[in-house]
């Protein structure tokens, strides 16, 4: 069909389990810049951000 493809919405630059971890640790991914290739936010980035 010719219909425009559905928009997927915003995907933060982290793999799903890391996003889930961030949520559990109360870390807002939008405040982080990822350390991995392509700016991907890693588990370590999240853990570091979660430290008091």
């Amino acid at each position, binding site marked *: 069909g010719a*219909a425009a493809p*559905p928009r997927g*919405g915003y995907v933060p630059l982290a793999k799903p389990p890391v996003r889930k971890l961030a949520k559990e640790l109360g870390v807002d991914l939008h405040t982080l810049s990822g350390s991995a290739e392509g700016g991907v936010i890693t588990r370590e980035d999240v853990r570091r951000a979660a430290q008091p």
Partner: protein
Amino acid sequence: MTDAEADLVILGGGSGGYAAAFRAAELGLSVTLIEKDKLGGTCLHRGCIPTKALLHAAEVADSARDGEQFGVKSVFEGVDMAGVHKYKDGVVTRLYKGLQGLAKAHKINYVEGTGTFSGGTTVTVDGTRYTGKNVVLATGSYSKSLPGLDLGGRIIASEDALKLDYVPKKAVVLGGGVIGVEFASVWASFGTEVTIVEALPRLVPNEDEFASKQLERAFRRRKIAFKTGVKFTGAKQDDNGVSVSLESGETLEADLLLVAVGRGPNTAGHGYDEAGVQMDRGFVLTDDLLRTNLPNVYAVGDIVPGLQLAHRGFQQGILVAEHIAGLDPKPIDEAGIPRVTYSHPEVASVGLTEAAAKEKFGSDVTTLTYDLAGNGKSQILKTSGAVKLVKAPDGPVVGLHLVGDRVGELIGEAQLIYNWEAFPEDVAPLIHAHPTQTEALGEAHLALAGKPLHTHG
């Protein structure tokens, strides 16, 4: 008998109770587990396992009957119920032995007997008082009936249906939920003429409407009759059969009436009421860490309102043990618990139905349905069905619904997607193994991400 103490006293050795026991023991707690019947409870002895053995025998029967479609000269000459029971009981026995071994390895103090909750954190068995630092109530559920409908003779519940030593010619199944649908499927495969009666407007009414429609279509093709949106008014039985009357005025004649109208919490007569456990219509009320209103008293499994599933019991049991041991377990998202109906075809889901998602996120929820007609492996299996995804507006996939033979095994992947809050864009780049049924999940996510592969864009 002398009284005994433990970190944890658990009343009921079913899925919820034994999971709590094993996990607590792993965490170094001393555990007393009280069970009046058999370790493993409903699921192992009268539920999940024996029904799935019947369903597999049913699959074997169908496969032999349909061999010609695949070029295989196979003949189906009927079912030997003694043989079916031998097979089914063999599976149960082996798993039961394994479970008993685990209880031993975990050094659980296993007490055989009927326990009564005596208040505080004490359970009494035959006069002996078992006092724990904490108590877990896990007494499970029983097959309900309807007012005026007494079980007995030709009117049976799932427990008896599992033991039947013959294949009924005609059966009426009262209730189109998971248990009713599974038995209907088994019997139809064994050669029974089955009619399902369901008061709600559709089969598997807790599922997304899409799943009901798919299942109903498949059952129609299998000549499994069903009457939905119609109330049962009464049943009469004699030596020749049972006659079931409906509000519509219709009467159904059969050899057997299976009553599968739900399961009630087994919470009466065990001292709960007397001890002041807060309950609602017999279900024990808890907070999201499974704590009852009484200090150090928890409840898990089918007695807690919500999904009545064995793995929910496992998950709750583990959570309670970890909480008691001082870990910090997260509350369980009930919607994240996968649900499978193991009929032919299977129905599997995790997350929200479209209706629930719209209630939660508004009308901008998007959905996508991928038909198994486009899935090579499903074509090879000659099964039809579909996958439906539900997506929150600018958000992750919040519901996955599948219908088709063997799709129950796809729920493992679906469960990760829902619980890890994946976006279609997370799944889309991961091209699935060809040819598998998992590709249907893959294609659905590809399409939802705006990059369909084997579908019209």
